[in-house]
């Protein structure tokens, strides 16, 4: 295949990838979008296989079959509640693949037309080191994120003194090593860079706590894109560069959206430690009255309402309550009650987490609204049903400048006539902040497991 022809083919593949992302602007076009993505991938792979540098197919076919089979099994078996972990695991694979591709290019640069072993031209060497370093960092960082999300590792931030200084020093050493390897190439230096990047990936993610995971996952998404870009520059492959830049900017935008949802700067999330110290001061719990209710009470209140807004959070995912919740909503709708869902941008452990879970439970997506779309409707709502969310409903974010979550945009549930709040106990939320909503007159606490409570309400409604 001639060089010009394959360049055109890569261009077409890139356009398909852009179309894949474009499709996600609405759920109707999204499925076609995914098909565009698959088509782009097939074109890119076929073009490479037809290039003159690829002559023996046996290893490739074996690799594709093994990888394809594993991917197929994972994709079929995975539970939708485990999605954040899965995405983290997939990011780690992209990172590791980038390291291996860069290493292959390091040992056999001739195959990629970038000089000979240990005498790779400086620019290619820089691109390669950056690609492999970002790849290695993405790999271990994603592994840590995966372990935290899967519960293998505690979600609490791991903090020690001098942490940021250590990271900064390691970062500087990394830059120095890249300069050194350009000066004199050696295997030892190359693997030192890889090792150091692996270590940095771990150190960067351990101080970040569980509730900041939406930012971390988006950030790692972005990194995997930049790693692909680095490799793309090394191989002078425009398709890789375009895809890398698309993925990189996508992850960066998602990180920005998530940070904005928490009113926190990107830097403060990266530095981590949020929610590490649980507030020991100002614990007002105990000497204030809380109105507790039963499933029957909740069923009665909702039956007599005309507008109900459901506010789901991570607790719903943990309790797997989405199906029971939808059943409850269906019964209410049968009574002629207007039921809608309000999603906070950082609800759950990854961007859009709640939307996927509700979609899984067959909730139509046009009943599921974003914060900006629905927040104005709370004052005219009879019942706000909070299930598994806490900090995103805390009025202290608007009123108390001392609060750790001050300034965070929240769902104004307290403006509705009645707030039904499912919670297992009176504990504080992730941010370690007391929620004064619990003590409001119009709040009724439903102390139970989220799923159990929904099932009980369903029984009471029937």
């Amino acid at each position: 295949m001639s060089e010009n022809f394959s360049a055109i083919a890569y261009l077409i593949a890139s356009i398909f990838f852009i179309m894949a992302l474009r499709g996600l602007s609405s759920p109707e076009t999204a499925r076609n979008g995914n098909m565009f993505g698959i088509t782009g991938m097939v074109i890119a792979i076929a073009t490479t296989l037809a290039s003159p540098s690829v002559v023996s197919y046996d290893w490739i076919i074996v690799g594709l079959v093994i990888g394809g089979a594993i991917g197929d099994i994972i994709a079929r078996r995975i539970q939708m509640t485990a999605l954040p972990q899965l995405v983290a695991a997939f990011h780690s694979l992209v990172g590791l693949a980038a390291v291996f591709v860069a290493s292959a290019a390091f040992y056999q640069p001739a195959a990629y037309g970038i000089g000979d072993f240990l005498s790779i031209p400086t620019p290619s060497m820089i691109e390669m080191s950056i690609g492999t370093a970002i790849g290695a960092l993405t790999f271990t960082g994603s592994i840590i994120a995966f372990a935290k999300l899967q519960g293998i590792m505690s979600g609490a931030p791991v903090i020690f003194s001098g942490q940021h200084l250590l990271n900064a020093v390691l970062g500087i050493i990394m830059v120095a090593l890249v300069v050194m390897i350009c000066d004199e190439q050696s295997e030892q230096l190359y693997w030192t860079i890889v090792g150091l990047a692996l270590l940095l990936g771990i150190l960067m993610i351990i101080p970040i706590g569980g509730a900041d995971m939406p930012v971390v996952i988006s950030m790692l998404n972005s990194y995997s894109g930049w790693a692909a870009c680095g490799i793309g520059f090394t191989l002078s492959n425009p398709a890789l560069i375009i895809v890398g830049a698309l993925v990189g900017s996508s992850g960066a935008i998602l990180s920005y959206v998530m940070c904005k949802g928490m009113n926190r700067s990107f830097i403060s999330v990266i530095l981590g430690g949020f929610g590490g110290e649980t507030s020991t001061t100002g614990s007002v719990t105990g000497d204030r009255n809380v109105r507790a209710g039963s499933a029957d009470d909740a069923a009665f209140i909702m039956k007599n309402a005309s507008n109900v807004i459901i506010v789901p959070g991570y607790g719903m995912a943990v309790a797997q309550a989405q199906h029971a919740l939808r059943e409850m909503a269906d019964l209410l709708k049968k009574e002629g009650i207007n039921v809608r869902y309000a999603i906070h941008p950082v609800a759950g452990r990854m961007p859009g987490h709640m939307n996927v879970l509700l979609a899984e439970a067959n909730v139509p997506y046009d009943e599921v609204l974003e914060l900006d779309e629905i927040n104005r409707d709370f004052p005219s709502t009879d019942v706000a049903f909070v299930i598994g969310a806490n900090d995103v409903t805390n009025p202290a974010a608007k009123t108390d400048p001392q609060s750790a979550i001050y300034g965070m945009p929240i769902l104004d549930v307290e403006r509705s006539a009645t707030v039904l709040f499912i919670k297992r106990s009176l504990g504080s939320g992730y941010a370690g902040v007391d929620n004064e909503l619990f003590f409001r007159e119009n709040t009724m606490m439903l102390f139970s497991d989220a799923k159990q409570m929904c099932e009980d309400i369903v029984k009471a409604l029937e």
Partner: protein
Amino acid sequence: MVLESTLGQEKSVTEILKNGAQQSANLIETTAIANSDGSFISMFTIFILAIFVGYYVIWNVTPALHSPLMSVTNAISSVIIVGALIAAGPKEIDITDVNPAKIFGFVAVVLASINIFGGFMVTQRMLQMYKKKVR
């Protein structure tokens, strides 16, 4: 005397600066030569333009689909497999003397294809769940 020595020093400083400038100019030149057809600049142009395309396309993605967005970007970033294929593809002259590059390439093919198949399939599964209200 004092003045002279300072002048001398100044001269040497400017010389060093000059040398430095010359060296970096050389480096840039070699960079350009290494990417003989000026391909670095064209690759860089593609890179920057793609970031802009990404920026505008991603802002159009509805927040409800942010999870599928993550999994599909994950799948397409595995296009890195093209680099792996080139490494795994050369003919082996002697089976006992396998180049490490070929092994690295093979591992990368496996990793990337897990991601390609897994990523697109999970995205498809997710997207199939999004339904409109039945009226």
